[in-house]
């Protein structure tokens, strides 16, 4: 290991990655997410969103309350797709899909 300070363990995003992102001009939380990939792994930000947001406030010298969270999207936890297969909502767009199956 090489002294990395890891902020997001799912995607291996380090404090220096965050600093690099800010130095390239990506300093909005959504931009940082897209540039570094933090919060896009299996935990979907449970472990890293607050940590990255607080570090971002410090690095960009903003009050924490000025930093919004990134958009929360389902599913909020790893979910086996078979659970969704019979939900009525899963077939809402059935007519738009290819009927033929392998």
């Amino acid at each position, binding site marked *: 290991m090489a002294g990395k300070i890891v902020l997001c363990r799912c995607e291996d995003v380090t404090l220096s990655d965050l600093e690099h992102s800010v130095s390239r001009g990506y300093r909005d939380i959504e931009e940082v997410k897209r540039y570094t990939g933090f919060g896009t792994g299996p935990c979907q930000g*449970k472990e890293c969103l607050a940590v990255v947001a607080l570090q971002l406030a410090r690095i960009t010298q903003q009050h924490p309350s000025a930093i919004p969270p990134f958009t929360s999207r389902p599913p909020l936890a790893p979910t086996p797709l078979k659970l969704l297969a019979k939900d009525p909502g899963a077939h809402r767009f059935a007519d738009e899909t290819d009927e033929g199956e392998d």
Partner: protein
Amino acid sequence: MRLSGSSVRAYADESIAAASIACGSRVLSRSLKYHRPRTFFCFEGHCSGCLVRLGGVPNLRACQSPCTPGAEVEGQNAFPSAEIDLLGAVDFLFSRGMDHHTLMTGSSVLNKLANKVVRQLSGLGKLPTHAAAELPEVGRFDVDVCVIGGGPAGLAAASTTARAGRRTVLVDDQLRPGGSMRTDPRVGRALAEHYGAETVRTGVAVLARSTAIGFFPEDDGGVLAVSAPDRLYRIYARHWIWATGGYVVNLPFPDNDRPGVLAARAVGRLLVDHGILAGERVCIVETPAMEQDVTALAQALTGAGADVTRVPLADVVGTRGRGWITAIDTKRGKLDCDLVAVAATPAPASEGARQQGCSVVLDEHAGGFKIVTDDAGRTSTANVWACGDVTGYQGPAAAAADGARVGANVVEAG
């Protein structure tokens, strides 16, 4: 059960993660980019540390999967094994970090080669061996009150609304309800069991091992999708109470992701809920805000026979160990240890409430994005309430009182 080919004896009601750590198993998988070793951190199903392949199905959380006789558990994301992973060389080759946006983009030939390599390196687990044998039907609940989270706040809130005659369903994602009570030596397993049983007795429908995976406002006036182990539920409610507590998080210090660095609450859970002392020489890395919680944990660990040293975050300069932690480096020198417990203020689990449009605000003392509520516990969205640590960290006793109070306000609101 069988863990990476070896037989492991385990208790029937414990998680695969608890059984694994009790038998000395360490590294389970490798991280996505640098292939750094990964293993347990939170023991509450919220980090990605303990993803394993179980019975041919990838990416299952070992800490939320109960032990079953003959279960086949394998590590994933490593070649040839999680303990000795050749792809770990990426970590040394890119010791100062890898910017994948500019990696080998100078030449189109090199870029194609890099893409091939990166595709081999990345991705999580391998597809299941078999397709699902059957597809489960979707269940449905129409209730007066839906409580999300079965910790001290959620159990108290749900019991309160059910006692007042409100049809109440409680969704909890853990193996057993109790939340942070199962991790705190000041509360303990017996009290968690008691409150869990009491909640069932008041008539609450308790969905254990069930996770609120999304709120869909456009669907019949709003539906909460909940994944249970055997099926999906659609939940419709007149009132929603978010009592999801907080997620344990790591603290920023060099090599803070080394295996053997666990959340302090995970170390507490192993001791309080499972009777497992995860280390003999424990270093607790702490922030001033967690002083009281750490004092309680340190006393319990010492009482169980561990040698405990407390280190302020500001003093930590690094960690050592191959495969598992052997020491941390501090400003005052090297401290040998076989476990590091990180005590940071838990981050409010507010992302579900955010899907219902509830306002949140980033607050360092609250641990992260706390749900904003008025004095009664109302959020910024009508008929949506919040109580306990998700409104800012308060600890199990205060969270239980808050849950009972907000539950009563929900009853009063109709």
